[in-house]
């Protein structure tokens, strides 16, 4: 128990919380944007996986982390475009469309991984690039807090900006009004000449954009390679976070942080020698419990009305 306490109450641990929350923040903002517009994107997992692969591969091809990031975002947005095409134009059920994209990502990335690296497991044989960590001067020197806030990967800071961006977009801008209107009552938007399909497509593309950053972080910041199924369910956890955050960017960011804590805990206790198979399930148990509690409370609230 003592060892556990010693492990948790350190700057390192808190630093790791923000590190692991980064992909969750991006993905959950992607979930918020699409859900608000009425097109829940359940392919966050697949889109991040595709982005992670693209980031790794193209940073290797162009020998530049920036190019890797660019292509990661591009590919994720392209996947979102495919999903938008099928679900909005061909009227595929949005859930099934998401399942298809996830399936495509899961198999497709391994397929291409093998083609380029001749390895179905990881891409370590390729010299892919990594996005830089940023040491903030002055702040980094503050005792205790400094090492927690400074020194993160650039995308971690971008993730925080992404939350603010999402909040601002939805609450204050005309596009945000359109997204909300289309999600709440699409006939209302239609009646004033707003194209529902166009607006929902934008929502999905924005969602893809977020996943692009999230996925890029995984293979170019969290670790420096691509490995099969490396997103490990973070896309799904982000969906749970968004459900619990009631579609609100700030609430969702808060629940994402909560799940980030669970993830960081899982990593930390693994070093204590607890059975690794069971320890790895901590984030998922936390998500399951969180979602269960949330649903129970919502149910009770409704019942008492």
């Amino acid at each position: 128990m003592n060892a556990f306490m010693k492990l948790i109450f350190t700057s390192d641990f808190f630093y790791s919380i923000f590190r692991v929350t980064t992909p969750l923040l991006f993905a959950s903002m992607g979930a918020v944007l699409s859900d608000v517009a009425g097109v829940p994107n359940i392919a966050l997992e697949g889109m991040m996986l595709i982005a992670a692969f693209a980031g790794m591969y193209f940073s290797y091809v162009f020998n530049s982390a920036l190019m890797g990031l660019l292509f990661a975002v591009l590919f994720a947005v392209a996947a979102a475009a495919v999903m938008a095409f099928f679900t909005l134009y061909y009227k595929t059920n949005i859930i099934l469309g998401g399942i298809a994209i996830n399936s495509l990502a899961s198999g497709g990335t391994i397929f291409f991984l093998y083609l380029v690296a001749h390895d179905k497991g990881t891409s370590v044989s390729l010299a892919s690039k990594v996005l830089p960590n940023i040491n903030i001067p002055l702040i980094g020197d503050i005792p205790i807090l400094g090492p927690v806030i400074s020194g993160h990967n650039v995308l971690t800071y971008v993730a925080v900006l992404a939350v603010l961006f999402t909040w601002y977009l939805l609450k204050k801008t005309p596009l945000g009004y359109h997204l909300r209107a289309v999600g709440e009552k699409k006939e209302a938007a239609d009646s004033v000449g707003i194209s529902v399909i166009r607006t929902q497509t934008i929502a999905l593309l924005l969602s893809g954009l977020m996943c692009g950053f999230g996925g890029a972080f995984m293979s170019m910041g969290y670790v420096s390679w691509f490995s099969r199924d490396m997103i490990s369910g973070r896309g799904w956890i982000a969906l749970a976070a968004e459900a619990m955050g009631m579609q609100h960017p700030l609430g969702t960011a808060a629940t994402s942080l909560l799940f980030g804590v669970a993830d960081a805990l899982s990593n930390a206790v693994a070093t204590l020698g607890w059975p690794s198979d069971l320890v790895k399930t901590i984030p998922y148990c936390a998500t399951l419990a969180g979602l269960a509690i949330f649903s129970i409370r919502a149910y009770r609230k409704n019942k008492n009305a």
Partner: protein
Amino acid sequence: MSRERSFNMIRTAVSMLVAILVAFVIILIVSDQPVESIKIFLVMPFSSGSYLGNIVETAVPLIFSGLAMAVMFKANLFNLGGEGIFFIAGAVGSFVAIWPKFPSVLAPLAAIVVGALVGMVVMMVPGGLKAKYGANEMVTSLMMNNILLGVGLYLLNNLLRDPGMASLVSYKYRKKALLANIVPGTRIHAGFLIAVLCAVLVYLFMYKSKWGYEIRMTGNNAKFASYSGINVAKVILIVHMVAGAIAGAGGIIECIGLHKRFEWTALPGYGFDGAMIAMLAGNNPLGVIGAAFFVSYLRIGADLVNRSSDIPTEMIAILQSIIILLISAERFLHKYRQRWIEKGEKK
């Protein structure tokens, strides 16, 4: 058969064709001998008894997975927990296949029953949460997948593991616990017969029984079902339990049918397959058998191509997603839909 139904079947067939075409394109791009490879992909699976046997044995778990998903989809539920259930049912069922000394027919039966029970009980978690509290069954079931993987691996590592073997596998199953081979010269086991029987039972259940009626009405319009006096919460729970039992049975049957020990160290990957098969079959349990064979055929084809050229078998996943996208796209070929239906009516 109504023109509407026949059109949907044609649309399904076209989707399958498009998928095969895409397979061709992939083979063309990647392989050094595209024409050879395409021939291998399409024809070789039929070329020998043992390959045909492969198709059948590969279809068995797909049938179970497809049936489980078909029942779910019919109820308009999107639980993707099949993967985890297969895994944990296999792991727990393995205990029954390894240690207790049951006589010949009882041994595999006991294992299967345990597997089904495990699946049923586990599915009650996402099922119950959804039934009573409306919790999103997709997310809960996917979380369960990861949790069950962890628990199953823990069991394998700490209880089932055979220390005498170099790789991570369990102790050997008792001979009597294995499913009998029914076609000599192949690896086709009795599980195939069980799968077909299961499909028939599920069909009768869904379309002829009163519970099936409740499930179908709930899936069609839950508010309507509730208003009509159907206990929707009970239906949701039952659907989960039935699907869990089917998937659980499928998991352990795959283990004692095709393997001699519990060997899975990762999720076996039947979850999404099941979803696709259910869709191909229009959620019809009998259609699931045919759809499972089709997917199995694609897999064996991809396997064979992989052996001779360097194309990864994951190409199947790409085909899978195309099939899912096209089949569920209501507007796919919709311009032709009207003409087809009208032509039929004019006759």
